[in-house]
């Protein structure tokens, strides 16, 4: 297994590069010294309060999104299942927007991730109910389109009704996602939910492996399918809800990463889980470096970059599975 050290090294390198990229041109050595010394100079403040939380969030969000994608695909045995495409991210964004616009998140900061998580649970339940245990592509995608469209429309409505003149411009953030100017407040808000969600999803490995043999075989192997399903729902919702609550809906991570890594792990769902977590972290870190290096003066949205990479792959996957859908 040389995949694991390779992926870990990649994430580590990208993490350092993320710390070093930004609008202010400062030497690498100088920046890292300031980060470690933390001596209250302006550069140390930039490194510790702006770039460090941003890099941490990119890695955390990428990891949980990759993991969620791999878990959903393993459970539904369908490579098109991805939190962004099937509307879970959109529903989380709606929950987050509701928490912010009602003022709940001001009184009680945890209301933000909790509301996102609540809406994410609803969306996952709806998807699983509509798509059924085998998750046929056509129903999965159609249900996802409907949920995404509804969540997106309601998000836009809530933001348009806000008395704040800048709220309507936030629609782009919630639809496309961005890590610009996030702080440690957001890291601490999201981290506990992501940790719980990731643990729940990581525990699915054996069950997902057994499911590749079919439901009956899995039951015969002693896998409780209802328990598996519950952990999948809660784990995905906690991961995607927390990620979306602090960074908006970042799509395609859970689609691209498992797709790229599946051959490397011999298509074993259990190995794909951790590999996709590492791969997702690397992908979002890389994308977040790219948005800052390509258009430093503009807040280019992460989701734009993800869609540019992910949409062609998504079309390719649809093309490949078109026989099943016909």
């Amino acid at each position: 297994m040389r995949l694991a050290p390779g992926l870990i090294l990649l994430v580590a390198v990208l993490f350092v590069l993320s710390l070093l990229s930004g609008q202010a041109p400062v030497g690498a050595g100088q920046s890292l010294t300031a980060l470690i010394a933390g001596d209250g100079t302006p550069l140390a403040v930039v490194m510790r309060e702006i770039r460090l939380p941003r890099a941490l969030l990119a890695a955390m969000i990428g990891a949980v999104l990759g993991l969620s994608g791999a878990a959903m695909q393993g459970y539904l045995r369908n490579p098109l299942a991805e939190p962004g495409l099937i509307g879970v991210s959109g529903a989380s964004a709606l929950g987050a927007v509701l928490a912010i616009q009602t003022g709940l998140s001001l009184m009680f900061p945890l209301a933000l991730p909790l509301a996102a998580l609540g809406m994410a649970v609803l969306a996952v339940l709806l998807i699983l109910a509509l798509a059924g245990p085998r998750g046929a592509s056509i129903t999965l995608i159609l249900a996802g389109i409907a949920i995404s469209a509804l969540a997106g429309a309601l998000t836009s409505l809530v933001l348009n009704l806000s008395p704040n003149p800048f709220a309507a411009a936030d629609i782009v953030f919630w639809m496309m996602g961005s890590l610009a100017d996030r702080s440690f407040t957001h890291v601490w808000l999201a981290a506990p939910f992501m940790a719980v969600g990731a643990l729940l999803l990581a525990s699915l490995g054996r069950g997902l492996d057994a499911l590749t043999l079919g439901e009956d075989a899995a039951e015969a192997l002693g896998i409780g399918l209802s328990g598996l399903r519950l952990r999948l729902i809660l784990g995905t919702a906690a991961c995607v809800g927390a990620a979306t609550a602090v960074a908006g809906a970042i799509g395609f991570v859970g689609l691209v990463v498992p797709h790229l890594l599946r051959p490397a792990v011999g298509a074993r769902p259990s190995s794909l889980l951790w590999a996709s977590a590492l791969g997702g972290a690397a992908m979002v870190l890389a994308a977040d470096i790219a948005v800052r290096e390509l258009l430093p003066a503009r807040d280019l949205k992460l989701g734009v970059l993800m869609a540019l990479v992910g949409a062609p792959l998504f079309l390719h996957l649809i093309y490949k599975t078109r026989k099943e859908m016909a």
Partner: protein
Amino acid sequence: MWGCVRPSRIIPLLAALVLTGAAAVAEAPQRVVSVNLCTDQLALLLAAPGQIVSLSRLSHDAESSSMAAAARAYPTNGSGAEEVYLLNPDLVLAGTFTAPTTVQMLRDLGIRVELFGPARSLADVPDRIARMGAVLGHEAEAEAMIAAFRAELARLSAAPDRRPRAALYYVNSYTLGDRTLAGDILRAAGFDNVAAEAGLEQGGTLALEHLILLAPEVIVSGRDYPGQARAEEVLSHPALHALPGTRVAGTLTDRDWICGTPLVLTAVEKMRALRLSLETGE
């Protein structure tokens, strides 16, 4: 309507009416409608009682208008051509940023529309006052107002011993440089604007990390709008409070900073007081 006008203004006005005679009165517009927040305030300062028919809707918003209390004596309009035309105005006051289609339609309907450009510096303020005085037929009042404005500005902007470095920081990481009205207010109050060090003369985006690296002594942040928006979160970012040498000087109000009226002096005075408080703090 009469209650909001100081008697001292009515007396010279009545005298002027008597002196200039009926011909001049016929020339001065009698039904003035303003559709722009800044022309609202200039008109309120210079118009005769009864001369104004309607003001823009924003004029009643105390967060945006320095003269909301006085404006509440008048009805408001939504700045649309249909609504304004039905008010039967003989003069419409608009900004150069008022929707061009609205302005063109009103002109096609035979209504006189006067456009006022936004003030980009304190030096533009006397010009705007004089123009409003001219279109409303109150030149003498405008002259007196300009003289008072110049004297008060000269008093407030007396050269300071030391010019602290400051930044204006708004929603969406927006800042304003020296060649803007707000930048000029800051300069007149005795501050150096760090936007110039970042190469911004007018308005522009100043990334949070850029601002922190410039390490200004004072960060004057924009007002908090009602409701919530992610665009505003940059103003409460922990990094702004993590610099030991930097003071976040709370919110500046829009109302005294955006319109080229004599009321900008309130903003200059507040910023001057802030600078003086820095000196005593040292």
